Each structure stands twice: as C-alpha cells, then as structure tokens.
C-alpha cells in the first residue's frame, strides 16, 4: 500500500469525521461523538503512516528528503498538525464541541489540494532548498499555523457565545467571517461535485477552484453564486442566534474559551517567531546572502507577526478582553492564510517553490 492510498483514506476520514462532528454538535448524541473521535483518530493515524511512507518513497526514488517541500506537502502537514493539536485538546479538556469547528478547516485545506490540482508528485529539490534549515523552518512554521488555526476556532466560538445583538460589530464580524468560510467550503463542494463526481472535466483547466461557481464560464452562474454568497451571509447574520443556542447547551464557558485562545497563541507565537521568522532569515542569509529582503512572503509573515504582537500587547498592557481579543486572534489567522496561500496565488517572490 503506497502513501497515496493512505492519504486518500485520511482525506475521506477527515471529511466523514467533519460530518459526524457537525452531527454530534446538532444532535448531541454521545455515540456520535465517540464515533467522530474514532474516525478522526483513525484518519490521523493513516495520515501519519502516509507521511512516513512518503518520506521513505522519496528515498527509494533516490531523492531522499522530508515530505515538507512544496505546497501540497505543506498543506498535508498543516492538516496533520491541526488535527494533532485538536485531538490533544479534545483529550485534555474532554470536550468535543470544537470538532465541528476545527475539522472544517482541515476539510478546507484538503479540498483546496484536490481542486486546485496542485502537483502531488515527489519532486527533487532545487539547490536553494537543499538545506538542513528546511526541516526546522517548515516544521515550526506549520506547527505555529496550526496553533493559530486552533486560536481562530476558539476565537470564533467565543464570539458566537458572547455576542447578543445583531448590530454589534463583533456579531457582524463573526457572522461575516464564518459565512465566508462556509461559502468557500460550499463552493469547493460544488466544484468537487461538478468536476470530480460528474466527471465534467477539461484538460485545459488547470485549477477547478471556484470554477463551478464564482469563476464559472457562464456569467449568470457566476452572478447567481455571488447572490447566493450574499444570501448565505445574510442568513448567517439573521439566524446566528440558533448556533449560539446550540452551543450554549454544551456548557462551554467564556473564560475557558478565552484562556484556551491565549494558550494556543502563546504556543504559536514563539514557535512562529523562532521557526518562521528567525530560522527563515538565517537560511536566507546562508543561501542568498540576505537575511531580509522584503519579499512578499517575508513581509506577510511580518504582518502576521505584528498582528499577534498586537494581540499580546493589547491583552497584557491595554487590558483588552473578550470580544476584541477574539476578533484579533481571528484576524491573525486570516493573515496566516494569506501569508501561506494568498501570497502564492497572487504575489510572487523567493518562496515561489510553493506555486500552484
């Protein structure tokens, strides 16, 4: 059994786990909760084995390198870190509520891989990437990203629970940010249905991402999707209280969420600073003779760093609490996503190894 099969099992497993977690969230059925955890843990084990095998396969191909060097591998590793972090939290705090909020992030990442058609091949490394710094820089960056992802999930949950009125800015923030995630997930689902299951495919199309909806060749479809997106935002905004009511019955306290939110940021921030920024700078210095060149990826990781520095200072020195802090941690993760994916898609620079 090769690594692609194991990755496939893990991918399906995470999607199934996502459905059951959401089901558990809605019906509060204990058996459902246990099966969600079982499926997620099994998928995680399968993914762990797949990563190890991919590493070995690269040696058998005579390339021999850690599976962390292109966009595909880094996304897979991100999902792995995220699920590991999530399973630790679930085990430690005996609470499965986050599952319904964390697994969609994993689903989003995996869907992105399939729909953009990024290369899954084990490719040899260009000379600049042949460095021992690669492993430390990439591993630590993604552990931090996963921690920030968990902070995002707890921050959003906090906002769902703490907001009261529809006119409150924090309420608007979580409903809009939440619906954007939902819309992206739904649009990816539509792409998946149209191009993978129905088999409507075209050799010319490099990336299927949003081709069934927003980027559709038919103008009315694209327009309809846009209207649909607004409808989703509106309904989430209008009926957000339903989610709050459901969440309330799980007995999650706001203090617990705020504390957990800080805890994961406090793990992510130092790891990101050291592994992402400092190790990255040292490596760039060794390879290119510049430790900092204001390339878009570097600049965006600095922006991310500043957002979390803002978070820490606002919390400790300005006494910011509650909603404001939760919003900040969510904005932080949005900049993480942009640093990681947005820069690769929209901007160019030294980190173009991760190109789609």
């Amino acid at each position, binding site marked *: 059994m090769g690594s692609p099969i194991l990755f496939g099992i893990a991918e399906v497993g995470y999607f199934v786990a996502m459905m059951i977690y959401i089901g558990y969230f809605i019906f509060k059925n204990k058996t459902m909760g246990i099966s969600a955890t079982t499926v997620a843990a099994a998928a995680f084990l399968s993914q762990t084995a797949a990563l190890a095998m991919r590493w070995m396969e690269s040696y058998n191909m005579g390339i021999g390198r850690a599976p962390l060097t292109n966009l595909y591998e880094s996304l897979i590793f991100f999902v792995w870190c995220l699920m590991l972090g999530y399973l630790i939290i679930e085990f430690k705090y005996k609470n499965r509520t986050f599952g319904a909020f964390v697994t969609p992030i994993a689903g989003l990442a995996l869907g992105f891989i399939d729909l953009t058609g990024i290369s899954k091949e084990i*490719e*040899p490394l*260009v*000379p*600049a990437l*042949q*460095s021992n710094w690669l492993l430390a820089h990439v591993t630590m960056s993604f552990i931090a990203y996963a921690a920030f992802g968990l902070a995002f999930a707890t921050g959003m949950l906090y906002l769902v629970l703490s907001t009261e009125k529809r006119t409150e800015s924090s309420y608007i923030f979580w409903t809009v940010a939440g619906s954007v995630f939902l819309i992206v997930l739904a649009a990816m689902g539509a792409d998946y249905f149209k191009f993978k299951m129905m088999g409507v495919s075209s050799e010319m199309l490099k990336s299927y991402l949003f081709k069934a909806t927003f980027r559709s060749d038919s103008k009315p479809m694209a327009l309809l999707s846009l209207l649909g997106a607004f409808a989703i935002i509106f309904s989430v905004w209008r009926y957000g209280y339903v989610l709050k009511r459901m969440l309330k019955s799980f007995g999650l306290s706001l203090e617990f969420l705020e*504390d957990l939110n800080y805890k994961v940021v*406090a*793990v992510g*921030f*130092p790891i990101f*600073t*050291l592994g992402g920024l*400092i190790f990255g*700078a*040292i490596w760039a*210095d*060794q*390879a*290119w*003779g*510049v*430790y*900092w060149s*204001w390339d*878009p990826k570097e*600049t*965006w990781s*600095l*922006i991310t760093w*500043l*957002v979390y*520095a*803002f978070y820490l*200072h*606002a919390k400790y*020195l*300005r006494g910011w609490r509650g909603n404001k802090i939760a919003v900040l941690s969510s904005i932080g993760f949005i900049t993480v996503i942009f640093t990681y994916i947005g*820069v690769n898609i929209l*901007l160019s620079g030294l980190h173009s190894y991760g190109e789609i």
Partner: protein
Amino acid sequence: MADKNIVEKVWGFFTSVKLAVALFAIIALTSIIGTVIEQNAPPEKNIKLFTKMFGPASAPTAYKTADVLGLTDMYHSWWFTAMLVCFAANLTICSIDRLPRIKRVVDEPLKPIDMTEFDKYGIKKELSIEGNVEEAKAVVLTALKKLGMTPNATDPGGPNNRDIQFYAHKGRYTRYAVYVIHFSIIFILIGSVIGVTFGFSGYLSLPEGETSSVAFTRQEEEHPLGFSIRCDNFAVWFYGTSDMPKEYISWLSIIENGRTVLKKSIGVNSPLKYKGYTFYQSGYGVVPDAKGLIILNVTPKGGKTEQISLHVGESFTIPGTKLTGKITTFSPALSFDKDERPYTYTDNMNNPAVFIEVTSENEKEEKKSGWVVKRYPNTWKMPDGSTVELVDNYGYQYTGLQVRKDPGVWVVYAGCLFMAIGLYSAFFLSHKKIWVLLQPEKTKVNVKIAAFTNKNKTGYEGVINSVFDRLTQRV
C-alpha cells in the same frame, strides 16, 4: 508640575503602549502596499498592474503618484524608515521606563506571610500529615525539592509557638524576559543599520576562466574588492535528463598581489568568505557570443581515449582514421522542433551540444555528420565504431555570484539568539512562589499551602496538587 517640559512630553509620548499598538497596526497595514506594488521593478510592470486596477487612462498618473510617495521602493522610503525609527524609539523608551519597576519586583526578597493570608491566594491547598513535625518537615521538603524550590524556614511561631513556615520562589529573572525580547529587536535593527551603512551588497557575473577585482552594485557601479577573484570552473548538474538543476558549483580562486591565496568550490547554501566579503552562488548563465573551448574525448574503435580541446570552427582528426571532424555550431540547450529542426530552447547551459561535420579523405569510409549531445551517450557514436564525447565546454558560462559585506550580521544573529532565549523564558517559564505552613497537632501536622505564579496558574496548581498528593498518600 502642571506644565511638563518638552523632553518629558516626548518621553511620555514614547512610553505609551497606545503608540506601540498603533505602530504595529500602521506598519502592518502599510507593509501590504509593498507586497502588491512590485518593489524596485521596471516601471512597465507596475504600470501594467495599475492599468488592471484603475484602467489605462489613469495608470500613468497612478504610477507617478506611487513613485513620488516612494511606494515603488517603499521599504527604503523616508517615511517607512521614520516609522521603523519610531518603533525602535518606542520599544527602547517603553522598556527603559518599565525596567526600574520590574527590577524592584525581581529584587524584592520573599517574606513569610501571615497565617490569615493563606486563604487569600489564588492557588491554595490544605492537607494533613500523620506523625510528628520532623516527619512532616521531611515530606514537605521533599515535595518542595520536587518542585525545584530551595526553601527558607521561619523559626517556630504562631499561637502555640510551634508553627513553622517554609517559603521559596524561583524564576524571578523570567520577569525580564519580555525586555530581553524587546532589546533583541533593537539589536536586530542596529545590526541591519550597521549592515546598510558600512556593508556592501552587490553581484558579480564571472565567466569561466576570468578574473575580476571589482563587484557591482545594483546600480551597476563598480565596487573595488581589494583583491581579485577568478572563476576556475563552473558546472551544473541536472536531475536525470530534466531541466531541473540538482546542484551548481563554482570553483573560485582568490588572488592577492599576484598570488593565489585561497581556492574553494562554492554551491548554493555554502558560500566563500574572504576578508569580510561573502560570495554566494546565486545563479549562472551563458556568456553571449563567447569564444570558449569545447572539450572532447575522442576514442577510435578499440583505441585509446584522447582528450582534445578546440574552438568552434576548428577541426580534429580521429586518431588512426582518415576522418576529420569540424565543430560548426555550439548550442547551450539543444532541442528539435516538430519538423526535426534543431533550435536552442533556453539561454542556459541545459543541454549542451555541438554539431560535428565529418569529412574523410577516403571517400568510401563510413561517416556521418551530426549533433553530439553531452547528456545523451547514444549521440557520441560514430558510424565506424569510434566515439566522440562532449565532455565539457569552457568559457561559455558565467557564474552568478551575490557579493556581500555585512559587518552587522553578527549583531543581527546575536539579536536572534537573545530573542530565542527571551521568547522561551517569556512564554514557557514563570516566576513562581510558594508558602507552606506547618501546624503541628497531637498525632498529625496540618499543612497549609499558598502559591502564586505570574503565568499559567492552572498548570502550576496541577503540579503542586500532584506532588503533594503523591507524597502524602505514600505516608
């Protein structure tokens, strides 16, 4: 003191956390612009971008405005530099302003607390140990040792004059950790200023076999090195027959006063350092209209291999035969189009090949003119059984070197090290205090514990609980 003087006002402005938080936001937001507008790029590129954004009519105006505002090289513009200076000033002054207060907290000696205060602490615990005071003392001391504490003890006191209190703290210096991080950032900024002021950053494209005593700045100005550097050879290897480079290496010599003082081969991730200058392998390319040497291994059928080197246009004979080969063309990257016509597909030395025109004095001798390709051994075979191998070419390629002199880099590295230490202490260590009161009774000793930590209260509470519970259960 109603009206403060100007120094106090400026000081006050820079000590505010509001300024710090505002600077985080402003620097983060303005930085975005520079990731959208391509920096230090030829104007056409950004005009194209502006055309997409604002339409063709306003694009030139938009570009001019951006250029005037420094947005085309914004990270080096006066206003961005000013923001970074503000940031550094804020960081320094804020830290200096707070340090005395923190020092007081750190230096404050730990004192025993009053019996009544034990209930007021966030972390508290009560238990009793069977046995006399000495036994209880032993248990408590073991527990405190497990917690990494070396406690002080009070003389017996309290209502019965028999109560003993142990008190200890550790990790008080971790309260400085945040300031270590702040100063590490200052260090990094100072290091980068030293680098920009006293350093040099440029490049040098050095063809094989050539020597240079200068490097070039980005503005193509000459920069004397004070010594000479020669590229003895350059080679690039590819993965299989793909065009993906696996490794490229330059063999360099440093020449001073006519003497070769250093010879080293460099690759990506392994530069050459000499007299403060570092030469990084950054790229390579083909020298236009080069008249380099072609190196061939010629082996007649069953004969001995002979290595020959010659220029394009020159001829050679295959020993022991009447065959003469003339090199008519050199291509750095040979490919054939769909009509089987040869063409050079890239400017890089990806697939070097020579066209050898073979003639013979003996009309009947088998001969065939054709391309000899370095990568494909089957093209080396001649019809008569001899082989002509394209071994190398010399003088056709240049090695692209990034040249840097940065006396500030060690300051930056030191800053990075301080930052790592500071981050670890700030996020994973804390200042922990503990007080343990022993109140002996007839057959047991009542123990009251109070503890404090400036971080991760639940974690510390858990450790205290587990250590004391395990020890007292054993007794």
